[in-house]
């Protein structure tokens, strides 16, 4: 009632917290999120179809074309805009003459794969640690919470770079990146899961479920996990673009994927010596990386609103009924 100033609340007219259909409806109402989803869909398709498209163009990512670069001028591509032609749709790389179109596509594969893999690892570890801390006894909680604190405190990029110093050189790099990013950056996710679980645990329906006489695991599976889906998905969507940027950053610094595997970050790193002579070589990978992270960020933002954990929690801890259910009954605090 007191909230009528801002939002009227018809008593029983609230949408349920979950329900894929409601989420989809709310997401669809945001045009920016839809556009971002479309861009990402296209990108994933392009990345999946990279070998096919390369065959269509008649090029591959690693063949040098010395004839297409001006060796007299240090290897600047011949022709306009980095040597765009019917054979090379987006021109060629300065110095080597490798085909840009195909290298950008293969770069997308690396970027998406590493980011997705790392996100999965982060979600799994975050869920495991967060749930263990929230559901375990005081000792377990204290151990896991301190571990989480240490992980959150760790400057990710610094540690990830450092790790590259000690891993054998023949270890497959994309997998190493997935493991490194995933293993180092699960802290915030674990914190989120722990916090959400702790506040869910206080809800009466979880107490009611304990009274049914089912096992703790049964209560967790039926009452807690479904309610965690929305915040975890939202946060995973935020982690994805940040993982893309981390991968690109590490490749930019020369500690990511190794040549000749194409990577946007690595292209940008070499581009910093070419931007006067061949601006196209800077702009193309920069544009790809920017569009990808922006699309992911916009989509995550849309998802956050559609799955709004605050909206959901308002439903859960609710304020139905009379003006004020006595806010803090008894001395449970």
């Amino acid at each position, binding site marked *: 009632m007191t909230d009528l100033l801002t939002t009227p609340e018809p008593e029983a007219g609230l949408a349920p917290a979950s329900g894929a259909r409601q989420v989809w409806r709310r997401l669809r109402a945001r045009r920016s999120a839809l556009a971002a989803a479309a861009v990402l869909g296209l990108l994933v398709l392009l990345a999946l179809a990279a070998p096919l498209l390369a065959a269509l163009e008649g090029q591959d990512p690693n063949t040098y074309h010395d004839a297409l670069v001006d060796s007299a001028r240090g290897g600047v591509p011949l022709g306009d805009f980095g040597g765009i032609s019917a054979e090379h749709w987006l021109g060629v790389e300065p110095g080597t003459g490798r085909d840009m179109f195909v290298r950008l596509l293969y770069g997308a594969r690396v970027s998406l794969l590493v980011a997705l893999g790392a996100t999965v690892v982060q979600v799994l570890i975050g869920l495991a640690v967060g749930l263990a801390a929230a559901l375990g006894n005081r000792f377990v909680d204290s151990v896991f919470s301190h571990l989480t604190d240490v992980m959150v405190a760790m400057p990710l990029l610094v540690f990830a770079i*450092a790790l590259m*110093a000690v891993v054998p050189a023949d270890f497959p790099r994309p997998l190493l990146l997935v493991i490194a990013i995933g293993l180092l950056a699960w802290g915030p996710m674990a914190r989120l899961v722990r916090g959400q679980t702790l506040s869910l645990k206080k809800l009466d329906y979880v107490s009611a479920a304990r009274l049914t006489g089912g096992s703790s695991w049964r209560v967790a599976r039926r009452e807690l996990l479904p309610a965690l889906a929305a915040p975890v998905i939202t946060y995973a969507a935020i982690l994805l673009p940040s993982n893309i940027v981390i991968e*690109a950053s590490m490749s930019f610094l020369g500690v990511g994927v190794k040549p000749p595997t194409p990577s946007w970050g690595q292209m940008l790193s070499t581009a910093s010596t070419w931007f006067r002579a061949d601006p196209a070589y800077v702009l193309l990978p920069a544009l790809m990386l920017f569009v990808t992270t922006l699309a992911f960020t916009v989509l995550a933002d849309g998802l956050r609103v559609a799955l709004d954990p605050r909206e959901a929690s308002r439903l859960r801890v609710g304020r139905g009924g009379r003006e004020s259910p006595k806010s803090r009954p008894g001395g449970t605090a």
Partner: protein
Amino acid sequence: MTLYFLRRALGAVAVVLVLSAVVYVTFYVAPGDPARLACGPRCNTEQIRQVREQLSLDDPLLTQYWHFLQGIFVGQDYSTGTSVLHCDAPCFGLSYQNNQQVTDMLVERLPATASLAVGAMAVWLSVGIGTGLMSALRRGGVTERVLTWLTLAGTATPVFISGLLMLMVFCAYLEWLPFPTYVPLTEDPEQWAWNMLLPWVALGLLESAKYARLTRSSTLETLAEDHIRTFRAYGVPERSLVVRHALRGALAPVIALTAADFGSIFGGAVLTEKMFGLPGIGQLLVDATQKIDLPVVVAVVVITGAAVVIANIVADVLYAVADRRVALR
């Protein structure tokens, strides 16, 4: 209050100890043979054996770690066969590359990193909080939409993209600014500032996007609180509502984030340093990683970790002081 600080300080020491132990084990024990790395690629077995002895690598793990800690807190002596090299209190060992003391290398790199951190922070605080407040107060207008998209784009851009574009535009094409080369502040303050301008703006503007979003959402949240409604219902003008009643609560999370970011920038500004060729700690780390110079790598990681932990405590304390409702526990 005092008890709180004491407990937080103890907790911080514990976290840093755990961190250093983890780092020590990962870097000195897990991979290959540090002695071979320290000695260099042209060493024979006998020379490696000598190095191993010199670095006490045959001692039990716990003893090694103890020596490492000892080095940090009381200093350590290294025998180089003929003479004894004393390494003063915060001692992180000797570089594998040139036997230089790691602590000296770090101190040498500190000014560049600190210059970057302070300047960029000034940019991101002023721009970030400013735009955040503006978009919170101009809700529903064109200004808000434009700012929302700008900040979204800002959060999605890595610093090496914005940095590259700025170099291209301002240094290569317009030639308004020199290509940055680091000039120490003590040498020539004016040149220092001119050369740092681009790194400050590149890093600061990007970070400010994050701050604008946070400021906006926390200001809106505070403005929706009941006590704001009270003062509105008592005829207090909108401007004083924001300045006198909303701002203090709204800025609390911003302060917390600032402190944490300031700490992590000491190691985390690797990208900006590489982009603009600043001889900072981040650059040192990347070089050391490529040359597998373990003592330097370990030192940077431990110091950055400690900086973040300390900054986090400062943030918590500032947050608690700003927001009286958060009891210091």
